[in-house]
């Protein structure tokens, strides 16, 4: 595999991991608004395991994508740089929201917790992911 193929493979993994994360979040949000929390625990728990795998892959391949710029990485003061910093802020917010969400789902699976706030937190997760995808599109085409 030459360098160009490797760069493409890293980008492919990045997009596939984001599709998994965002698509899964939309699905669980939809289920959370339609069904009682107790009925979505199993699927939500599987999503949380997959979510963190995808987050690890996203951070790893995201840094790989930045490395592909090399010396040509746009400056922080440029339009691209400002959009990139905004994306980092949204990713930080996603991590801050996702830790208690995943722990709440794990707790619901282990105990008989009600999961009263699950709808809101999955809705927030989907919203943050939608913002990250929008900024990623701007960065890719800007």
């Amino acid at each position, binding site marked *: 595999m030459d*360098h160009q193929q*490797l*760069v493409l493979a*890293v980008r492919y993994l990045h997009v596939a991991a984001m599709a998994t994360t965002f698509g899964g979040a939309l699905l669980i949000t939809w289920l959370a608004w339609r069904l009682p*929390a107790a009925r979505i625990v199993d699927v939500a728990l599987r999503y*949380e*395991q997959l979510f*963190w*795998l995808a*987050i*690890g892959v996203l*951070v*790893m391949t995201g*840094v*790989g994508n*930045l*490395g*592909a*710029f*090399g*010396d*040509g*990485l746009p*400056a*922080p003061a440029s339009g691209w*740089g400002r959009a*990139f*910093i905004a994306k*980092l802020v949204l*990713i*930080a917010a996603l*991590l801050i929201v*996702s*830790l*208690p*969400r*995943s*722990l*709440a*789902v*794990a*707790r*619901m699976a*282990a*105990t008989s*917790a*009600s*999961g*009263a*706030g*699950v709808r809101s*937190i999955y809705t927030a997760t989907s919203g943050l992911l939608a913002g990250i995808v929008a900024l990623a599109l701007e960065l890719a085409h800007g």
Partner: protein
Amino acid sequence: MAWILGTFHTAAVGLALLFLAYPGGGLGVTLASLSTVAGLAIFLALWTITVFATSRAIRGLDLAAGASAGYHRRALRWGALNGVLFLWSFAALLAVQQLVTAPGTLSWQSILLGAGFVGGIGSLFALTIGAVIGLVLASIDLAGLALARRIG
């Protein structure tokens, strides 16, 4: 639980490094000095070591039920070990990259000098940084658990 917390810790550290490195403007040059394969291998090493250290730090604790006594002490110990193990992996992967991409440019004297530095002062530094990061992340974990109890 170890998978969720360990990957959260890895992603949080990765993101914090990006926040520190990008605004200064040196990130592109730093990343360009690493091959793509070496960069991926270094991240995978960090991820694996962090999930392992987290699993050992929470072993025997029922965090979901709120039983977190001693978690900070464990996080200090395993965070310190995490830092040292990552430093050794990082140095070994850089040495392998150099040996593979530019054979003959790395002398035995350089390897021994580097190993001495990494095993001595470098390890002490990594031990301290790892312990501090472990403590900070343990506090964030406990805050996350408190919020999780409010969610469900």
